[in-house]
């Protein structure tokens, strides 16, 4: 279905007047011819005046050229023919035969949406994203049915908002839940200068986590990457430590440590009145967290609060997002604007055509068969 992205470009069609005028004017310009028997020529008062164009093929070629150029400016596209058959996406694991309605497209809700004629693929890790993908892919007006078990696995934190009404069909059954991951206790490795306070609070926090906390001097070798480094010092970080962070380490530094500059510096923890306590930024593959106050209870009473270890742990670890949901409560909402379907751009082909016609026009205009070239 052809269409124009910039119909105003058709205004260039007014330029077709130009060749018409040129070919009309050229007609008036008489070709000179040597004619010795002039005295027997009787001058007519006026040659028969009627609208007559000279060089028909050339004129036609020029008109075609201008029309093509105007079309080119109007940016023509060819919309692909849309398949309006209702679409049914079935979560892998369900039996597609039970859906059993005729004249629909049955596909697995899995990456690349294979047809249900093929064996069921692996269950998707994030089916909500696939639903959004499907909604964006399908042209406007195509009916979409999604068949899910009662308890699907791999949901987002947000209910999907789609551009169309979805027939959300819930079948009995549940998808297998992932194996729980045994969380290893956080280990701390402290490097403290002698004049820096605060190491005891970290030791206490590690004890509260039932984790390991080692203490060393500033020059000790650095711990493995899964251990959080606590750097209590002043002045800039040594290059070795910066390199360690960049390769994936996490470091907690005290107030006086100069951290590398970062544009994406965020405050992770605020006190009750909103003053920042810890700010953080990523560096390479790792990140740093910096206390904004000295680690003494007078300045930072949160150190003595009973939830300090939990707060610190929450900053250092990210719990897995919930991905299991009751399908009944997860029916997609509508409200997102429909995506425009990609169309085939005809401009390059038109450009080739224009070049061809231009070549033909030049050939017609300059070929030697013509005596007087307008």
């Amino acid at each position, binding site marked *: 279905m052809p269409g124009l992205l910039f119909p105003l470009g058709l205004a260039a069609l007014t330029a077709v007047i130009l060749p018409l005028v040129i070919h009309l004017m050229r*007609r*008036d*310009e*008489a*070709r*000179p*011819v*040597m*004619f*010795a*028997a*002039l*005295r*027997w*020529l*009787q*001058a*007519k008062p006026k*040659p*028969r005046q009627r609208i007559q164009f*000279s060089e028909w093929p050339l004129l036609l070629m020029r008109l075609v050229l201008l029309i093509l150029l105007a079309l080119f400016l109007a940016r023509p596209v060819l919309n692909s023919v849309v398949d309006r058959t209702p679409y049914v996406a079935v979560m892998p694991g369900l039996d597609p035969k039970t859906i059993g309605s005729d004249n629909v497209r049955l596909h697995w809700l899995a990456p690349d949406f294979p047809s249900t004629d093929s064996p069921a693929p692996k269950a998707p890790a994030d089916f909500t994203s696939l639903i959004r993908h499907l909604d964006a892919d399908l042209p406007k007006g195509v009916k979409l049915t999604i068949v899910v078990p009662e308890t699907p696995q791999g949901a987002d934190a947000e209910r999907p908002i789609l551009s169309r009404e979805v027939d959300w069909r819930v079948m009995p059954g549940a998808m297998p839940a992932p194996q729980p991951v045994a969380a290893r206790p956080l280990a701390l490795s402290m490097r403290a200068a002698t004049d820096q306070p605060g190491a005891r609070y970290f030791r206490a926090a590690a004890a509260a986590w039932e984790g390991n906390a080692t203490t060393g001097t500033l020059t000790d070798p650095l711990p493995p990457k899964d251990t959080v480094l606590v750097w209590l010092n002043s002045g800039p970080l040594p290059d070795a430590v910066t390199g360690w962070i960049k390769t994936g380490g996490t470091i907690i530094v005290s107030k006086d440590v100069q951290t590398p500059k970062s544009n994406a510096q965020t405050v992770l923890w605020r006190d009750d009145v909103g003053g920042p306590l810890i700010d953080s930024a990523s560096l390479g593959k790792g990140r740093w967290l910096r206390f904004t106050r000295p680690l003494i209870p007078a300045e930072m009473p949160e150190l003595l609060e009973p939830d300090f270890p939990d707060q610190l742990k929450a900053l250092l670890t990210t719990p897995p997002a919930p991905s299991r949901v009751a399908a009944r409560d997860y029916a997609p909402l509508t409200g997102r604007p429909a995506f425009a379907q990609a169309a085939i751009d005809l401009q390059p082909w038109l450009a080739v055509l224009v070049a061809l016609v231009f070549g033909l026009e030049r050939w017609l205009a300059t070929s030697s068969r013509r*005596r007087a070239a307008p």
Partner: protein
Amino acid sequence: MFDPIPPDVRHRLKGLRLSARRASGASGIGLHASRSRGAGLEFAQYRAYEPGDELRQIDWKLYGRSDKFFVRESERESPLAVWIIVDASASMGQSDAVRAAYSRLDAARAMAACIGELALRQGDRFGLISLSDTGIRVADPATGLRQRDRLRLELYGLKAAGEFPAANTLAPVWERIRAQDLVIVLSDGFDEACIALMERLSSAGREVLFIQTLTAEERDFPFDGGYRFEDPESRAELLGDGKALRTDFLRKFAAARQALEARLTASGIRHTHYWLDEAVDAPLARLFGGGA
């Protein structure tokens, strides 16, 4: 080498002979019917008598002086001088659009070369006069291969330019062309001065033949559309639509040609025409073919 005669025409020339109606042969032995008898008049040499010579050819006065028989020999003289007059005015440069490289003058060159070839073959003397107001060139009549080469050289240098010369500058023509000479004029016949010259030559006892060289466009007038017709000599111009002008022109042109033919016939000038899309020998065949 410059040879204006196309090969096929050269082949057909074999069947042609230049013939003059008025040629009396009074001036020598030759191809043409003669009233006078005997050898030529122009003295060449004496030679010793050999058995077989006619007795009346012996110079008796010399015998009286030397007591020996001598035969007086005269140069063999052609009885006919053929003058080729080529009009080299600018109008002769006109050609047809379909064959732009072949002008009237080119046709005149080819015809002049053909006439020269014919004259050379039958031993007649031939000369060339080209007429233009930029200069009248004369090649005196003679015969032989050398004269043929001279003719070709003259033809090669011809250029169509200027107008037909005025009557008072035509003295060389009158000085050179003797009575009884055969004069063949190659022109488009559009100049009144040219016609007048032919009439005067004819009435003065020269045998004048005229080949009117015309383009096919003048015969057919195939113009369609707007044209600016330009006379190469007077530089007059006329703007017109080819189709609108056609009927009128063809009628007037045919009438003018008829009037000219009548005038020429009245003056005793044999004449024919040559269209630029014809073979070059066609007018010669019309003029001389009947007698051959």
